[in-house]
């Protein structure tokens, strides 16, 4: 069975990627998991400089999901290269580095710096974090902004460029198209849904940041729909995510049109989820006589549904 997938020029040994912001820098999990067995690790979002993030409380549990407003606490790109990459190289991890900026120049600078660093395999451009006011999501919420960031980053790097898209727009597929037009090698979606929770006893928001991003199984059907919509709009590979908690969930995204998937919240619950997902996908491939996972991508069969739709 062949689980490998291609994201632009990058070949992943399997389609399972640890989602940015949900796996630290990867090294945190090295005691528990052989990092080389993951398709890739999307690093925690990195700015040029270290950031402190928001004060606690940073997460709230909600029905079948959670809100987070971490605020992109992070060590900055230079410390990542100096302190984390050597270990990640030694552990033979495939590293997709998630980059965040306030200005277009910051994204370009980050892309330049990381393109020269050994052990970086792709760049995921964070234009979708709902938890910081400036930059980032401002680009991701407009067609021009998305186009401008992606084309500027593409000019300075040989690495595959993967903008990570926000679902907090009217039409995510048109944003995906803008990214593709700008030269994106793939798109990843979705980031979290802007959301909030209030303590009715105190009438205070539960998060210090007032609002945060919703993730977990609660968002999965919306995320699947968005991947499906993007699949029909763009040709580049899609990395799908949103509430994947088992192999069937991952397959749902792949069948909807995702070439690879990211797993975030479910890893918090079960850090050993990766081998279980792989086993479940392999079992499915055996049962359905699928030799290559790539053959499943976008294999959704809507023919009967369309007929029913027409006849009703």
């Amino acid at each position, binding site marked *: 069975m062949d689980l490998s997938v291609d994201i632009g020029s990058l070949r992943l040994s399997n389609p399972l990627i640890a989602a940015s912001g949900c796996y630290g820098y990867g090294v945190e999990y090295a005691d528990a998991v052989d990092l080389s067995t993951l398709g890739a690790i999307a690093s925690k979002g990195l700015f040029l400089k270290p950031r402190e993030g928001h004060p606690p409380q940073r997460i709230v549990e909600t*029905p079948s999901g959670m809100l987070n407003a971490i605020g992109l606490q992070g060590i900055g790109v230079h410390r990542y290269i100096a302190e984390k990459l050597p270990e990640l190289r030694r552990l033979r991890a495939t590293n997709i580095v998630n980059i965040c900026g306030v200005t277009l120049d910051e994204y370009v600078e980050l892309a330049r710096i990381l393109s020269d660093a050994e052990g970086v395999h792709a760049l995921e451009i964070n234009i979708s974090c709902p938890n910081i006011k400036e930059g980032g999501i401002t680009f991701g919420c407009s067609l021009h902004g998305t186009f401008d960031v992606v084309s500027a980053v593409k000019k300075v790097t040989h690495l595959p460029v993967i903008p990570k898209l926000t679902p907090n727009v009217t039409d995510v597929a048109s944003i995906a198209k803008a990214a593709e037009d700008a030269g994106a090698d793939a798109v990843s979606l979705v980031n979290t849904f802007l959301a909030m929770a209030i303590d009715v006893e105190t009438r205070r928001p539960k998060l210090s940041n007032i609002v945060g991003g919703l993730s977990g199984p609660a968002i999965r059907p919306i995320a699947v729909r968005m991947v499906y919509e993007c699949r029909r709009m763009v040709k580049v590979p899609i990395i799908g995510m949103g509430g994947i908690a088992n192999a069937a969930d991952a397959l749902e995204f792949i069948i909807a049109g995702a070439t690879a998937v990211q797993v975030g919240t479910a890893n918090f619950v079960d850090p050993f989820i990766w081998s279980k997902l792989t086993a479940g996908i392999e079992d499915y491939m055996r049962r359905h006589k699928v030799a290559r996972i790539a053959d499943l991508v976008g294999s959704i069969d809507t023919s009967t549904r369309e007929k029913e739709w027409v006849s009703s």
Partner: protein
Amino acid sequence: MPLDVEARVIQNTRLSPDYNVITLAAPEIAAATRPGQFVMVRSSHGSDPLLRRPFSVFEIVRSGGTVTGLSLLSKRIGVTTRLLFDAVEGDVISCLGPLGRPFDAVSPPAEAWMVAGGVGLAPFATLTEALQERGTATTLFYGARTGGELFHLDWFAARGVRLVLSTEDGSKGERGRVTGPLEQALRQTSGEIMIYACGPEKMLEAVSHVAGKYKTPAQVSVERVMGCGMGGCYSCVIPVREGSGQHYVRSCLAGPVFTAADLVWD
């Protein structure tokens, strides 16, 4: 290396209408646990509650010299603690651990003064055993709302731990907060003391303040809202001193045990 064990409930003892001690058959985790470390408990296989909850390991349970499991001291306040309270023998609870930075047990001539508030008693059974092995004289300052919520006193007394009790309603021991008797004792001693504290954050802050006032080192075990326990989510951060400012560190990796003087209290 943390392990994820589908642990059978061996015993569940209700101590009061809110408190219980639940014993889980997770010998692999128990054998590797050091005093002050915690486990992440998942009490459902659905998505409510979705996330695990952290619990200090209370006792390492042995049978005929063999480690057979670990117990958790729990107070019913939320969904997971309610499930733990209601669990019956034979139920299966997923348990991930051991996790976190443990207490550093002192040796004689230093004395150990443990300060527990309510369910903050949890890490002090394993710490007591570690201190016993070193022959360290140990005192437990133990405070609760009421006398009916002071548990396992015989367990600690049987291990030679001196007990100093306090309750907010005065029904047992001294009336008031646990920091009252602690400060009184610090004022009177000239010996070398290490304070260990676990309880509500306001109590930890007060203990840290008193420890600083009497120039006594203290290790405190904090509890923050935790998502994963592995360093992945960055939710459980706590501010520590750094130069002239402060810096958020993850309490699951850098803690839950911190040197009191390093922490900045909000």
